């Protein structure tokens, strides 16, 4: 197993960064799937990416400056996310339980729709958790597109499917009642597909309110104590996890 590596470090990095085209991707994915050591590498690479992102998520990175003390919410989120990242990536080693992530969901991490679609046929149980935490209308719109495709496809093929969208941080914009286009799309999806649930992170909500930002959630959105909590629960229950 330790002989010559089949996948170079660069290639594996490109895999994790979503930089491979379909053919290359499938090749690497097949090897990752069959090689636990490689899978561990993928997890570790993702963990480094995630940590880096968290370390610079606050504006200009002034986490310690007294002048910016008016930004109370951020560290809580970072803590949650850091814990979550670890729970997701090292969790199976720590928890002495069956792995929370199955082989399919390991690829589906971090918004890798392409891989999720590829693995979709082999999914057991059909439970997908879509975690929306990044800002940007385009990302949110794209996430909705994918969710809609998944729902429609399973409906057509009469495959049982449960999808939950959990939103926190900037991703909470997805559930804002005020944003008419997104809100309308969500309402339509929810109406057509009862198996879709929408869950907002209470901590994000409270943080926004504490900052004086008005938050009004679209109808049909329920609250979880925190997105972290929700994600960990779902992962342990064997849901496939997709981060957007």
């Amino acid at each position, binding site marked *: 197993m330790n002989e010559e590596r089949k996948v170079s*470090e*660069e290639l594996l*990095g*490109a895999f994790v*960064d979503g*930089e491979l085209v379909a053919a290359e991707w499938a090749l690497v994915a097949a090897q990752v799937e069959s090689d636990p050591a490689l899978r561990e590498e993928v997890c*570790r*690479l993702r*963990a*480094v*990416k995630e*940590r*880096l*992102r*968290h*370390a*610079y*998520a*606050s*504006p*200009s*990175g*002034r*986490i*310690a*400056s007294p002048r910016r003390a008016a930004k109370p919410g951020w*560290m*809580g989120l*970072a*803590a949650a996310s*850091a*814990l*979550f990242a*670890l*729970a997701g990536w*090292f*969790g199976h080693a*720590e*928890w002495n339980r069956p792995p929370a992530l199955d082989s399919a969901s390991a690829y589906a991490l971090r918004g890798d729709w392409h891989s999720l679609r590829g693995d979709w046929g082999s999914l057991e149980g059909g439970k997908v958790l879509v975690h929306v935490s990044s800002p940007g209308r385009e990302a949110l719109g794209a996430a909705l597109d994918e969710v809609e495709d998944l729902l429609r496809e399973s409906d057509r093929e009469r495959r049982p499917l449960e999808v939950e969208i959990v939103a926190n941080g900037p991703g909470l914009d997805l559930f804002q009642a005020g944003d008419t286009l997104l809100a309308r799309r969500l309402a339509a999806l929810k109406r057509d597909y009862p198996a879709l649930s929408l869950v907002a992170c209470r901590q994000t909500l409270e943080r926004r309110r504490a900052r004086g930002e008005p938050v009004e959630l679209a109808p049909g959105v329920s609250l979880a104590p925190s997105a*972290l909590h929700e994600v*960990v629960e779902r992962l342990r229950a064997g849901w496939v996890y997709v981060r957007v």
Partner: protein
Amino acid sequence: MNLGIDHLFGPGQALRRDIERERGMLGRMAYAWCHDAALADDLAQMAVEKALRAAGQLRDREKLKAWMLRILANCLKDHVRERRDFVDIGSIEETVAADEPTPEEARASRELVRRVRVAVAGLPFGQRQVVTLVDLEECSYAEAGDILEIPIGTVMSRLCRARRALREVLEPVAEDTLGNRLRSVK
């Protein structure tokens, strides 16, 4: 479709607003590059001003972010050309150490943030730029290459070396410091 109105009348209101909106992103990136909050603000401000002046040159609105990051990278390059002492790892340690006491969780997280920043600050500058563009802003390799004006092969090898170095520093931290915390997630 761009009907050319921007070219006739200067950047339209919408584009101006979009440019302004990237200020936070630029500030974050500049900070990750130079680790100096005041300088990062200045650089972001400079880049926004330049972008507003040069908005007519932006062909493809979709590429606004990459275009602005490229302007930012050039602003930093100019700055470095003038004076070379902009990275000060010590100051990162100090600002974070000066923190008031906080709940345990926030402190642990802050510690992690600090370690990551110190690790990033320890990277050679070229590696630091590539890894932050790809990981913080999710730039594609092609975009990162464009922004920094280097070939994709260089992007990939710098990225690879940066990650190897970061993992060497950070992975023991995850296992020692945060291994305990993880169990409390249950």
